[in-house]
Each structure stands twice: as structure tokens, then as C-alpha cells.
């Protein structure tokens, strides 16, 4: 058992384990920037990060990043370019894994980052897609991270900004012309939800230390399926925690 850690640190560690060695990772913002850095420092030394601002990197930036466009992320880049060039790689199916932040997700992995309520007069106007829809549609597989609350994991999202498996019917993505494979995990503050091979409905695969299956089910806005083999999420290792704290020394992303 390693030392104490925050829910965000656990989410970063879990997200980093989704990165395979050699992957081209469309990194996105916030916690995934740290997840990329952790993976590069441990099990995925050959991974490359692609940033929609127009950057490709191998080594993680050597100073704190508030955004992907911060100067430390540019110095030492493998490629500084225009956004459409980064999108070109994704459009060709050459991005193995993408990360997307979500505000709402449903059981089929459809994400909403646009409108809560009627788009013509929304209850909440969220910031929008950014590159989220592009990643959801074009990357080979993707992962989302969010706080686990019933108002976020909902029966039906008000608006599908970034499609997962649509209505959940077999072959929905292919029938609708979506290039990439779809979501493989929803990493939350309470556990990890995964999807069956080929897509469909999310199920609870692991519960974070200190939480119970019943609690996770109660905090989910639909009747959550639980895997027969549901396990406890592995806590961050000492080396994962050390890497997280190296790249987020003030806890800007992981301790606030």
C-alpha cells in the first residue's frame, strides 16, 4: 500500500495505465496532460503525445503546464505546426488513444459538453466541443475522466457533443460512418467503467479504494451493470505518485 493520495492523483494514475507503449496519444487538457507524463516516465517510454494546438512531443514538458500551449510544452517538441496537421493524423486513423473531458455521459458513452437542457434556452451552457467531438469520432479508442455524480452519469444526455456508441445497438458507429473504435473507459472519482468488446453499454469494472460497489451504483444515473469480476482499482504506486507530483508540484490539478 502506498502513501495517501487524492482522488485526482488516482484518476491520473489510472488514466496513465490506459496508454500503451508506442501509442500516439491525443492528449487534451488537464489531468490527461499529467497522465501522459506519468506513462512516458514508466511503462510507455515510446509513446508520443499529439496536442491539437499543433504540437507533437515525446518527452513530457519539463515544467508545469496550465495549458497545452504553454511555453514549456513547445520547447523540445518533435513538431510545432498548425492544428489541421494534427487533425490530419487523427483523420487517417493514426491516433491510437484520445482523452476527452466530459460534463455528462450516458450508459453508451455519449458525452455532453455543450448544453444541459434545451439548446435554444439551456439550463446550463457548457463550453462546447473543443476537439472533443473530433477525438470521439476519429481516434482509435478514447477515455473520458469525470467526477462521479448522478447529475453527470445520466440516463440520457441532453446533447451528444462527442458520440460514444450512440443508441447502443450493435454496429451503431460503423453504420453512422464513425471512423474510430469509440470509448474504452470512463474513469471517475469512484471507479472505472468499461465497455464490452465492440462497444455497447458501460459496466463497472473496478471500484477505487475506500469506496463500495453499492455507493458507485447509487451515484450513477442509470441502473449500472456490475462486472462479475469487479475489482478494487490499484492504488497509485509510489513511482506514479512521484511522477504526478513532479509534473504538478503545487497540486494545481490534483490537490485543489
Amino acid at each position, binding site marked *: 500500500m502506498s502513501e495517501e493520495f487524492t482522488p485526482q492523483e488516482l484518476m491520473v494514475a489510472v488514466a496513465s495505465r490506459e496508454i500503451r507503449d508506442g501509442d500516439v496519444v491525443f492528449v487534451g487538457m488537464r489531468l490527461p496532460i499529467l497522465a501522459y507524463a506519468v506513462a512516458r516516465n514508466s511503462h510507455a517510454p515510446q509513446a508520443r503525445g499529439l496536442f491539437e494546438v499543433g504540437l507533437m512531443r515525446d518527452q513530457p514538458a519539463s515544467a508545469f503546464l496550465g*495549458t497545452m500551449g504553454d511555453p514549456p510544452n513547445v520547447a523540445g517538441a518533435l513538431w*510545432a505546426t498548425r492544428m*489541421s496537421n494534427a487533425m490530419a493524423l487523427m483523420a487517417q486513423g493514426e491516433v491510437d488513444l484520445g482523452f476527452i473531458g466530459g460534463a455528462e455521459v450516458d450508459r453508451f458513452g455519449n458525452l455532453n459538453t455543450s448544453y444541459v437542457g434545451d439548446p435554444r434556452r439551456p439550463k446550463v451552457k457548457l*463550453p462546447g466541443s473543443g476537439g472533443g*467531438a*473530433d477525438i470521439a469520432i476519429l481516434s482509435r479508442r478514447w477515455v473520458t475522466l469525470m467526477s462521479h455524480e448522478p447529475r453527470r452519469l445520466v440516463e440520457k444526455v441532453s446533447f451528444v457533443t462527442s458520440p460514444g456508441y450512440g443508441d447502443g445497438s450493435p454496429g451503431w458507429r460503423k453504420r*453512422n460512418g464513425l471512423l474510430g473504435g469509440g470509448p474504452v473507459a470512463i474513469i471517475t472519482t469512484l471507479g472505472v467503467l468499461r465497455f464490452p468488446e465492440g462497444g455497447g453499454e458501460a459496466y463497472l469494472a473496478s471500484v477505487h479504494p475506500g469506496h463500495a460497489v453499492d455507493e458507485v451504483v447509487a451515484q450513477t444515473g442509470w441502473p449500472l451493470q456490475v462486472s462479475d469480476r469487479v475489482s478494487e482499482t490499484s492504488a497509485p504506486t509510489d513511482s506514479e505518485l512521484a511522477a504526478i507530483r513532479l509534473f504538478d508540484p503545487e497540486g494545481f490539478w490534483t490537490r485543489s
Partner: protein
Amino acid sequence: MAQAIERFVPDGSTVALGVALEPLIPFAAGHEIIRQQRRNLELVGPISDSLFDQLIGAGCVRRVTAAWVGNVSEGLAHCYRRACEQEVPRALEVRDHSNFSISLALWAAAWNVPSLPTRTLLGSDILRTNPDLSTVDDLVEVKAVRPDVAIVHVQRADELGRAHAWGPLGISEEAGLAAGRIVISCEELVDASVTLSDPNRILFPETKVAAVVHEPGGAHPSPVQGFFKRDHAFHRDYADRSRTVEGFDAWLHEWVLDVPDRGEYLKRVDAEALRIKQHRPSVPSDFGYE
């Protein structure tokens, strides 16, 4: 800057801003637009960090055509929310895009075609709400978006409009080529011998550039490679204070309305703490020919 905005950003203009994404955001130009009380603007951009939010809160904007409006390190954009949810300070029309599709909309305008096809946005509800997007033969057609003016901050430019920018460029090139004209603000105003020594680094054809404004620090609080770090604390302060209309108004007075220009603004921030001091110049390219 005041002259450039007065002349090239009239009421009702379609204005592309923040087209390099997180870096090089022309905040000084945006603040001058607010001071001159421009109205009925359409803002075009990918992600704007907090500049779009400020222009919306100040009542300058009737429509946003963008992929994302928020505060990159802090999350939600509070003025944008109030405009969409409560029509405060006025109603706002939103044409949602993704980052890829807004890039394509600008490339379509740059190449003078009505639209460009793409595989992105298939299966997204963005197709339902934005009339500029349609599905044809299993592809999405993205209609051209043509800004009247693109405003771009760069590291250096000469007085004839040859701008050098480095680092990631986001959608700067397509925004500039699509726009009727371009307004440049720059950290350094340099001699043409500097810009012309490296023509590959010149961002736009000089024929498109209508004005060059020497505006050091004109992108604060966004970063400028080789010049300034991003001011994260400033973004956090803005996010906190803009939660209420009163808080936003007080912020707007303190940082925009009661500040005559960017020179005065910079005296109120700790610019020295943000200035990049350890330089990493690239190796010059050789343009020799005989």
C-alpha cells in the same frame, strides 16, 4: 491599437480572434474593442480562453461561431453562460463547431469554395443545431466562414506586415487567409531585413495585412513563446470574479474600461515575473543561392 480597432473593426463585423488557441491571444486588441463599445460582433475562433467571455460580458457580441468558449485552466465561462441562459447582458446566437470543423470552415473560405467535406462530427448533435453543417453522402459538409477581419498577436513583425510567429499556430493561417484583412499586434517591431531573412516564418501575405500595431505584452495573460509565460493566477482571478454580473463589471472597470491602453495595463501586472529570461534561439536557416 485604438486607431486600428476604430478603422478595421466596425460594429457588426465578423472577427476572428484567439486563432493560435491558448498562446498569442490578442487580449490588448479585445480590450480596445470593449473600450470602443463595439456592438453586434460575430466572434470566430477555436477555443478562445477567456477573451471571448470578456467581449460577451461587455455586450459587444451577437453571435459566436466557435468550438469552445471557456477558461482553459479554470473551466466554465460565466459571461457566456449568462448570455446563453439568461440573455444577460444580451441574447447570444451560438454556432457550435469542433476544433477540426472550424478550421475547415476557414480553409473553405480561404480557398473560396462554399464548403469542405469531412468525417468529423458524424453522430454529433452539433449537426442538429448548427445550420452551417449538413450531411451529404455519409460526409459532413462544413460551410465556409469568412471573417471580415482576423486579429493576430505575434512575436515580431515589420511595419509592412510581415509577421513572424513561432510555436504551435492553431488555426492562424486559415483564419488569416479566410479573412478580408488582418490586423497584427506584435511584441517587437523589427526591420524588414529581419523578417525577410526567413520568409518561411512569415505567417501571412503582406497584401492581406491592413495594420501592424507594436503592442508589447499585448497577449497577457496568454503566453508568448520566448517572451511571456501564461499568467495562471490572473485567469483564476478572472474566473472567480466573473461569477457574478457585479464581480465581472468591477473586473472590467479595473482591467479594461478604466485603463487607457496596454502600456498602463502592464504597469498593473508583475510583467517581470512573467517575462521569459532563459532564451533558446533556433539555429538560423541558410537562404544562400550562389
